[in-house]
């Protein structure tokens, strides 16, 4: 397209865990890009509406003007479009390991999906969400096992997909009346391990900020 900006632009929103997945992957791989903070609670930009007309959501990665939407699609794209960038987040040449990584990365979406129900709902539906979030975190803890990271010794695809939800966990603990340390201690240790990585530390916001944001959303939706 004539006049399209060369290089990478990430349309994103500061607290979005889905956007943070992309920021962390880009930082891990040392791929330069322009970060573009989007207005989501007010009027969305023309660029966002043109780039993601179907969902009108971030993150969107623009590569020489062409949009890639959906955070996990973006992660796969970065692996494939920048084959020389390292580290590889998906294990090369092991289709079974790659399938396992994709499965657990997709599963990590459940943390946010169920977590959102925790603070949005009351009564029986909230109780259901409480039971579910504990099961989800236990499943993740079980899959991690005694490994340092989900793929083994190296920080990879599943870790990138899951780690942005870590600052949301203290809020979920409060709404859900559970403790991650209690029900998923290995996952809690993994979270502390990941926080030491520069890409993660620079991309994530502290839990207090996330909790403030949840309160803002509750006010916006008229939830007590």
């Amino acid at each position: 397209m004539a006049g399209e900006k060369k290089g990478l632009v990430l349309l994103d929103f500061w607290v979005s865990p889905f956007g943070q997945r992309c920021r962390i992957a880009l930082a891990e791989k040392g791929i330069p890009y322009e970060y573009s903070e989007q207005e989501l609670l007010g009027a969305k930009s023309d660029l966002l509406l043109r780039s993601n007309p179907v969902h009108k959501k971030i993150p969107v990665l623009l590569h020489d003007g062409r949009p890639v939407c959906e955070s996990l699609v973006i992660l796969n794209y970065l692996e494939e479009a920048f084959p020389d960038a390292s580290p590889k987040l998906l294990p090369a040449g092991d289709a079974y390991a790659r399938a396992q990584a994709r499965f657990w990365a997709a599963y990590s979406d459940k943390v946010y999906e169920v977590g959102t129900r925790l603070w949005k709902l009351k009564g029986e539906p909230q109780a259901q969400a409480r039971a579910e979030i504990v099961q989800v975190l236990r499943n993740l803890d079980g899959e991690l096992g005694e490994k340092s990271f989900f793929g083994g010794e190296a920080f990879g695809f599943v870790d990138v997909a899951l780690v942005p939800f870590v600052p949301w966990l203290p809020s979920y603990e409060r709404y859900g009346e559970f403790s991650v340390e209690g029900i998923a201690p290995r996952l809690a240790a993994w979270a502390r391990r990941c926080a030491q990585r520069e890409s993660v530390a620079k991309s994530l916001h502290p839990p207090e900020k996330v909790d403030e944001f949840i309160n803002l959303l509750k006010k916006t939706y008229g939830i007590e």
Partner: protein
Amino acid sequence: MAGAGANDLKVLGVWTSPFVIRVRIALNMKGLAYEYVEEDLGNKSALLLGSNPVHKSVPVLLHAGRAINESQIILQYIDEVWAGIGPAVLPSDPYERAVARFWAAYIDDKVRSAWLGMLFRCKNEEERAEAVARAGEALDTLEGAFRDCSEGGKKPFFGGDGIGFVDVVLGGYLGWFGAVGKIIGRRLIDPARTPLLAAWEDRFRAADVAKGVVPDDVDKVLAFLQTLLAISK
């Protein structure tokens, strides 16, 4: 298909499941023999529960005894393991792959939700009609997607000259679309509203790789719907 064959492949499935059908289509594309095991969702096998403990759902692909779960992930696994055998399921260009994955995610979000609403979750005809309307909106969007992917309708499939990832993902739903069509008295993919998709549907149903796996006996599907509804109660 009898016998796991030289590749030691087994598919655990339910014959009407859109997610199972798409896996079988991909195996057909690669010309791979596999053992098919029909699961009773009211009495799941130990093999299914052991292979997919997290979701306890079909399809499961067992390859040399190792389980791969989630249909879109299974499709990519098949494409990678048997790369260079038969046609590719996903295109090779990274951007085109991203576009295909985007539309597959869209289908399993919007079409899946409407499908559940039209058949399994509606408590009355009003709710069914609302889900049918949502399906129509998703199909309108997919008509535009097809136009983009097929160079304005010049190519026969979302994948271009041949069946690809998006075709297989959407094609898995066609058996159920036929059943809905009988219930509402018209084709769900309406040729007057989404002509490119309607022509695509005819083409896909007629494809060799779809034969025997995309159900075309609408009454049999509707009878099975009653079985599934009874299980979910």
